[in-house]
């Protein structure tokens, strides 16, 4: 296992490097740059002289491979660079926004797993019942509908019409910030939007695993031994049904982080997704690279953790 972990840890930086090269090249091959993005085409007042001076200052006149190598050198020195739009340290901006994203996504993930697994279990145990059909319908709705649509519905009904929750933001403007009830109140709608979309997958996976487990020999054996049904379900069916869910957790992280670009924008949640979204619009390369790099590292580490966890929860799995 140790060897496996070390091997994965050694491969991870290479994969991250590959991701950064791809992202850097793609963004730089697209037309436009941060300087043209700063110009408002509606009322252009910047002259080419200003634009050229700005390009010179931002190092955008250098060839693409030179810019990439400079970026990489600085990265190895722990310097993620400075925003080409507002001049702020990118590392500081990531540090400022990442906690908000982690808070939202971690909470959503935990709730989606808990609720999704529980509903999947019920659905599997009550196969073809009305409840199973209703839950299946809900699951397909969650899988089919885009997250921004669910978010808009929630905002309109639960906030604008019923006024149960704040519409947007992380705290009430002008009130104290930090871990408080106000924050939890603001978290409800974005978390709910995330959970509705994510739990469908967990529900369907768990349902399928439960149905598999119910037909497995070890369950028949447990029942023939005379174990109470409750014990059969909890100790034999449920535990084994959880195994695929571990994999699903690792796989769902990229979509959660990707979805945060839209959700954070809609809910004005000051996270890394919103930072990435505004950076994309402004062609702010250092910020885009840092957001991509951070996301890639998080996803790769989560996948590694998921693989390791699988080894722990399933005794049949060996990495040696």
């Amino acid at each position, binding site marked *: *296992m140790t060897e496996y972990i070390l091997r994965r840890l050694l491969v991870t930086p290479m994969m991250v490097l590959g991701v950064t090269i791809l992202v850097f090249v793609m963004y730089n091959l697209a037309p*436009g740059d941060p300087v043209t993005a700063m110009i408002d085409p509606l009322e252009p007042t910047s002259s080419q002289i200003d634009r050229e001076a700005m390009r010179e200052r931002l190092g955008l006149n250098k060839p693409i491979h030179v810019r990439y190598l400079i970026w990489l050198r600085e990265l190895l020195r722990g310097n993620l660079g400075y925003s080409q739009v507002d001049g702020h340290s990118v590392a500081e901006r990531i540090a400022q926004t990442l906690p908000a994203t982690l808070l939202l996504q971690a909470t959503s993930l935990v709730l989606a797993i808990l609720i999704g697994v529980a509903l999947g279990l019920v659905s599997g145990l009550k196969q073809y019942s009305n409840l199973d059909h209703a839950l299946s319908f809900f699951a397909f709705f969650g899988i089919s509908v885009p997250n921004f649509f669910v978010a808009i519905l929630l905002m309109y009904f639960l906030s604008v019409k019923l006024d149960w929750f704040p519409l*947007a933001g992380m705290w009430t403007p002008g009130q104290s*910030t930090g871990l408080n009830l106000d924050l939890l109140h603001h978290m409800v709608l974005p978390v709910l939007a995330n959970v509705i979309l994510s739990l469908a997958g967990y529900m369907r996976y768990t349902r399928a695993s439960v149905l598999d487990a119910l037909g497995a020999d070890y369950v028949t054996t447990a029942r023939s031994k005379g174990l109470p049904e409750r014990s059969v379900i909890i100790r034999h069916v449920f535990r084994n049904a959880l195994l695929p869910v571990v994999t699903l957790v690792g796989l769902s992280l990229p979509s959660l982080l990707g979805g945060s670009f839209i959700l954070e924008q809609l809910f004005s949640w*000051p996270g890394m997704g919103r930072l990435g979204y505004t950076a994309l*619009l402004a062609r702010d390369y250092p910020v885009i690279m840092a957001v991509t790099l951070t996301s890639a590292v998080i996803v790769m580490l989560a996948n590694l953790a998921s693989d390791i966890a699988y080894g722990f929860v399933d005794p049949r799995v060996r990495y040696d």
Partner: protein
Amino acid sequence: MTRKEVSRREFLRAAGLGAAGIAAAACIPAQQSAVPEPAQQTESMEAAGPVSGGTLTIAPGALSFTNFTPWKVRGTSHYRVFSPVVQALVRGQEWGDGLTPQTKEFKITPELAEKVDVEEPDRVWVFHLRQNVKWHDGRPFTADDVMWSWFAATHRDVARQSGGLPQIKGAMNLGENGGTMEDLTGAQKIDDYTVRLELEETDFDFISSPNTRMDITPKHVFEDVPLDKVVDHEPFAGMPIGTGPFKCTQLVPDQFLAMERNDDYWGGKPLLDGIIFRFLDGNTAVAALEKGELDVGFTPDLASFQRLQAMDHLASATFPTPCYWAYYININRFPDTYHQLHQALLYGIDIDEYLAVTTGGLAVRDNYVFSHIGVGTLNQPPEGLTDYQFDPDKAQAILEEINWDFDRELEFSVEGEPTVGEETFQALAANMGLKLKFKVFHPSAFVPEVFDNLDFDIYSNVQGCSTALGHFWRIVKCGGTPDAGGINWNNYCNPELDEVYAAAMQEKDLDKRVELMKQVALLVDQNLNGAPFFRGVGRLIFNTRVQAIYPGTDYAKSVRVPHEKIWLKQT
């Protein structure tokens, strides 16, 4: 390590604790709000006049800003946030502030300078500064601050994206080669409260144009800051210190900027306790207005505006903007027929129908390029200017005259998705037999592809937003292409027009200058690849509790915005 070293139960427990740790780490340490609780109401609810107290919440129309220095003001929405805090020596007036009628002569509004003596018209001025002004940190405002601000607005090493003053004598040299304050020879401190400003040459637009930025920043904040670090110097960049009626108290990046009343404001104590600018997505801002979470929103899309207008708790205002909308035809692709194509469009497109669909009939048709400039009689169109009334037969005749191939599809370059205006234009053009096919560019690719590489047959644009006399010349001047420092995006050239425009910009007699400008307009009318066909209209939506928000506070341009006079009706 073997698997047995950590049991499954231990692993799951540790994983649970780890997740809890991440969630806890994710929580940003608590800060106390610096925004005061609303003050006790000092007047009875029945009082007819303004009452003090309350916090105004505004969505400035931007996703986020983290730099509020005058050197990085990026457009109107940025200015909205910046304007209650940082002030200028003087400000111009123009359409859109709700106070300046189209026919009125533009004039300057004193701000930090209480009086301006003209030593030589349009070139040399002496500013007498207010003596009772304090910066938000309590330090006195003096001539040194003005001198520093002009220096920062001209020096090579200050990485400005806006706020430059290259017209000042000595500024070009300072901008190219760097130097000291002494090198800015056009700026002189006469005493602690008097400064003299001299331009390199006469500039009719400099002092009265709202586009000339004369924002003043505190010298003492930057005394030990290297010039190349000035623009991003924290905490000033995020929470600037100014002399305005409100001072910054709390910036939560990507969320909001909170300001509180400046009790020492030279113009009198503001009525509001505070202002909060929230950085919201456009659709979210509309929902927040509907819900009552937001007091003021700017220029929502027409459908949202009309829906919000009908709500009891919301009020609206519309106001003319100086900008005009135009459609341009690529001169390089249609060198012999661009002007006829343009004429055919203006006759063949039902502009009233277009305006009904796109602005709800609020905007007005207008094909005179100087109708927004209130210098003398310049805003009144000259005799002989073509009146393009809807006439499909005339349009058809023009197209037949140039042997137009009606099967040809024109590439209609658009930024992002086509707007309602562009779709309406396409539909109305189809009525006259012109086929337009959208060519969509990513917003950041629009400038390099359409403006730099001229990749269009036709495109739409908003221009002329400046009331400076010389601004339009930058759009049409021969050789004034972007790579030559201009904004003649269309490569237009008419030497005769340049000659007349140059004469107008040198003419010191106002009436003669106006006549020359009108000749420019006629030349434009006779041979331009594109021209205005309507003037825009701004839309403001606000909660009915907000009083004195309009006129005077559309925040659309760098006019003096009397934030201190806004008040909230108590309910």
